[in-house]
């Protein structure tokens, strides 16, 4: 048989061997049998040199074309077998639960507080803070709360077991005094914080709870400014459909003093017309005098409310104690 005839038949055999290799090791074995150093096709190539000179170019071309064909077939079969080998033995069940990387949740009181703070900051307020252990001056006297005022009753306030009778602040208003003692107007602050009242815990009371209040002192501040800011904050907090009502009230540290009721679809769903939400008023001149501001020059307003109350309304929570139990199933809901 001529060399060229042998090339054709060995090529056909090689292609057949590659195609029938069932896995990658078998494929490599087939490759060795034909293209390896001792392979059959390699042996044919070695015979090229023994041909007459004039036959060599044509024969060389034929042999090379055949070799390229075998190598292409080898590459294609290898890719096919590799892909087959990579497919997992068992199919993945994509309906199985994934491997979770759970992120934690911020406490609902933190979330509500930050939302309120953000609403105030948008209006140019800075966040302020003060101590939770207070003295009577900052908590009551400077705020124009008379000695016989019920708020000062030991029944309602926690005192520390110390001779100077420090107390746990009953409202964040004590921070107003601390800031005004240190800074000159204009003042524009929002004060979130913990406060304490000597109430036994029940569905609506906890001895520890949170308040937030705003204080604005400048020249020419009016009740109109107060109403405008309160409305802006509550619209942001409770939605644009919220309606507010201001009722005259009494707080010792504001004059005039107002209570704020609100209503929206949620309130009406609760079967009520209005819900009380906050207290406010124009800072009492006596308070300004107590911190050394001239009430003839400066005017201002303050308003404050309970954070738990807002959170309970927002999420429909009916028991304040849930906030402090930190049940992980509760926390995971916010």
């Amino acid at each position, binding site marked *: 048989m001529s060399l060229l005839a042998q090339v054709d038949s060995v090529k056909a055999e090689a292609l057949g061997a590659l195609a029938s290799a069932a896995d990658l090791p078998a494929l490599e074995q087939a490759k060795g049998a034909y293209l390896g150093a001792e392979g059959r096709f390699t042996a044919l190539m070695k015979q090229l040199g023994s041909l007459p000179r004039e036959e060599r170019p044509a024969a060389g071309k034929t042999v090379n074309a055949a070799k390229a064909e075998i190598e292409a077939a080898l590459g294609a079969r290898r890719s096919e077998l590799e892909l087959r080998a990579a497919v997992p033995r068992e199919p993945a069940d994509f309906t199985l639960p994934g491997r979770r990387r759970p992120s934690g*949740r911020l*406490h609902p009181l933190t979330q509500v507080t930050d939302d309120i703070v953000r609403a105030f900051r948008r209006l140019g307020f800075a966040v302020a803070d003060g101590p939770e252990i207070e003295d009577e001056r900052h908590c009551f006297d400077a705020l124009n709360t008379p000695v016989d005022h019920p708020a000062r009753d030991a029944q309602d306030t926690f005192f520390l077991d110390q001779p100077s009778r420090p107390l746990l602040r009953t409202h964040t208003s004590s921070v107003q005094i601390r800031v005004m003692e240190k800074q000159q107007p204009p003042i524009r602050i929002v004060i979130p914080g913990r406060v304490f009242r000597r109430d036994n815990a029940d569905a609506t009371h906890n001895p520890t709870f949170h308040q937030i209040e705003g204080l604005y002192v400048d020249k020419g501040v009016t009740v109109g400014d107060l109403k405008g800011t309160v409305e802006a904050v509550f619209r942001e907090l409770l939605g644009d459909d919220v309606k507010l009502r201001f009722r005259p009230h009494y707080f010792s540290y504001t004059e005039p003093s107002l209570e704020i009721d609100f209503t929206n679809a949620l309130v009406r769903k609760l079967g009520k017309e209005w819900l009380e939400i906050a207290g406010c008023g124009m800072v009492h001149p006596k308070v300004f005098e107590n911190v050394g501001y001239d009430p003839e020059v400066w005017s201002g307003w303050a308003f404050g409310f309970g954070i738990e109350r807002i959170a309970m309304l927002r999420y429909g929570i009916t028991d304040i104690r849930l906030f402090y139990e930190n049940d992980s199933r509760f926390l995971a809901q916010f």
Partner: protein
Amino acid sequence: MKVTLNWLREHVDFAWSPEELSERLTLLGIEVEGVQKLSGEFEGVVVAQVLSRDKHPNADKLSVCRVADGQGERQIVCGAQNFKAGDKVPLILPGSVLPPKSGETQPFAIKVGKIRNVESHGMMCSAAELGIDPVATGHVAEDGLLILRPDAVVGQPLAAYLGRAAGDVVYDLEITPNRPDLNSIVGIAREIAALTGNPLRVPDADLPAVAVDAKAPVVVRLEAADLCPRYTARVLRGVRVGPSPDWLRSSLEKVGLRSINNVVDVTNFVMLETGQPLHAFDLDLLAKLDGVPTLVVRRAAAGEKFVTLDGVERTLAADSLLIADPGKGIALAGIMGGRNTEIQPTTKDVLLESAWFQPTNIRRTGKSLGLRTDASYRFERGADIGIAEYAGRRAAALILATAGGSVDGDVVDAYPAPVAPRAVALRNHKVGELLGIALPVAEIEGHLRHLGLQPSARTPAATDEDGTVVDAPVSWTIPSWRVDLKREVDLIEEVARLHGVDKIPSTPPRGAKGSHPYDAVHDVLMEVRRCLAAMGLDEAQGQTLVGDALARAASPDVVALANPLSSDMNVLRPSLLPGLIDTLRHNASRRNGDVQMFEIGRVFVQSGGQTREGWRVAVALTGRRDAPFWSGADRDAKCDVHDAKGIVEELAERLGIRGVAWSRRAEPTEFWVESATIALGGKQELGQLGQLSPALARRNDLRDPVILAELDLGLLLARRNASRSFKPLPGFPSSRRDVAMIVAESVTHDAVLAAVKGAKAQNLETVELFDVFRGKHVADGHKSLAYAFTYRAADRTLKDDEVQAAHARVLEALKTGVGATLRE
């Protein structure tokens, strides 16, 4: 626009240095874009008078003289012989240089020095030293000093004495588009006059009286009065066109204009001086109508061709304004004259135009032709219609002075509808309301008067004597050059400029952001919360009031209530941990066994009789580490102390805190079964971390290990470092060497790191622990540690032997430093 110091000084007095002038102009709203000092001739050379002449003590041919220089007396040592006391001579002051003589490359600088031990403060000069021809300048040629004329003024610059150019300063000013009046020397001088209160010297424009001829020398026909509401023309006859005198040429050249001839130079000079562009025509080249030269101001025919002075033939649009004679266009109005009527050396009779053209039309024509000139620049912005006649008169006077000739007839002033001066009302109290300062009425009105405004509705006498602000508005007549003053607030701005904006005190921002130190803390606390939540921890909010039993186990320094409600709420929390343990207990009782939480809150401790509150952050972990999953050997692994430590490390890194050190407590405590204290910078106590004592855990129904950590948040915040800076990414490959070794159980990771650090191995980038093993093949009381060491240089690929050498040092340090037995 360019102005020079000396030119301004011709029109107003001011005592400012060149630098101060810059500053003042800038604060007036005229920005100085560039300042160029021009040195004059004989800089530093003044006229001096010899007061006495004595022989030098150490030299026969020298004399020691006392000399007056106009400022004081100086001692000068001099070698010349041709002078005596009383003579006036040129004196060059120390710090100045003599002009270089031919052949010299370095000018000769004069310094204070000693000549034969006698100090000399300057040098008296010869004509040769100054490079002056003595005879040509009217002096006697002789050896020695140049003896000046006896009438020379002592102290005068020699340049002034000789009539040569003196130094000057050129200011390049940026004139805002609303103030076309400032595109002139007079305009700038007027601002300086208003600021200083010194009078403005307006250039003279006196012409010899001429008999008013019955026949006008020229006729002006305004056919487009909407585009040219005013056109003035003057005729000068018998003018000799020639080069300009030195003062005229130098004035133009200093501000960047080329000198052409005396007539054209005068028109440019007056434009620079007054802001009014002018044009001079050769009258004899104008066509006549009925024997009289006639000017027609008309719109061009669409497509009309016209060759401007620059020789370019331009095709005009129908709305271009042309100055024409009865037969042809002779000037592109307000932009450029025509070649056909240009002033030439042979010109005898001159027609001088001074007009006012409508700005938008000039702008449109100039833009469509791509032609912008000094004239169009000024007309575009709005010239002063009120000075058209004056500026022409001023130019005529200067042409007579520089080129001779005479005025023929009176001016022709075509101004069919004179513009009435505008009036703007100002309520003086509005000035204070807008500026925020109380200015006396006298000051307000003084500033406006200085700018040329006149109160028309109220006499100055009605001004309040005590200077209080009154409500009655004052109507101010606006001068024709101030096209920008249109309403009250424009006048207030003028008052602010002249009063000085820098003198208006700043007041705190109104309605702006409030401020409190806690504002920034709030943000960091939120950042810490989000960071911990991102690591999978839920946030808890515990009670501030806790029971004293658990509280005292956590900290002995508790603050007790005087009037507690109950024994489980009778003290303030000294730590967040008791509250968190309570939270774990609550969850365990609800069968929530896997809890990972944090809390941020305040704690209260008694120390030294003082009650202190401080922020803390605490972490509590119990139960399974990972979320439930259905596969994996470690899936039910419980949390251990390394979980809590990883959280603390991650938080510290996020806050940019370094130098956190951990030290294990040797013995269990009542609270902890095993724990570590955490310190910052080796000193300050940051907190603690560990596993809760099983007795306490059991008491709270907690079965799995309870891992707790608590940090002083105040300290964390104080040490927080929020700044980040980029380090270039490595550009060269690293080499890694792994080391496994056996060490005694007492050898800590920190001790290994310290030993490695002590090796000072070059290019060691990172050291990473990747395995800790006890058991098979490791003796009791020992452990196997495996570390990966990465070597990398920033500037090259490390060679293998370099890495090998560095790594050998590390291995040696491990053997000697921590007694490591290396595992091969």
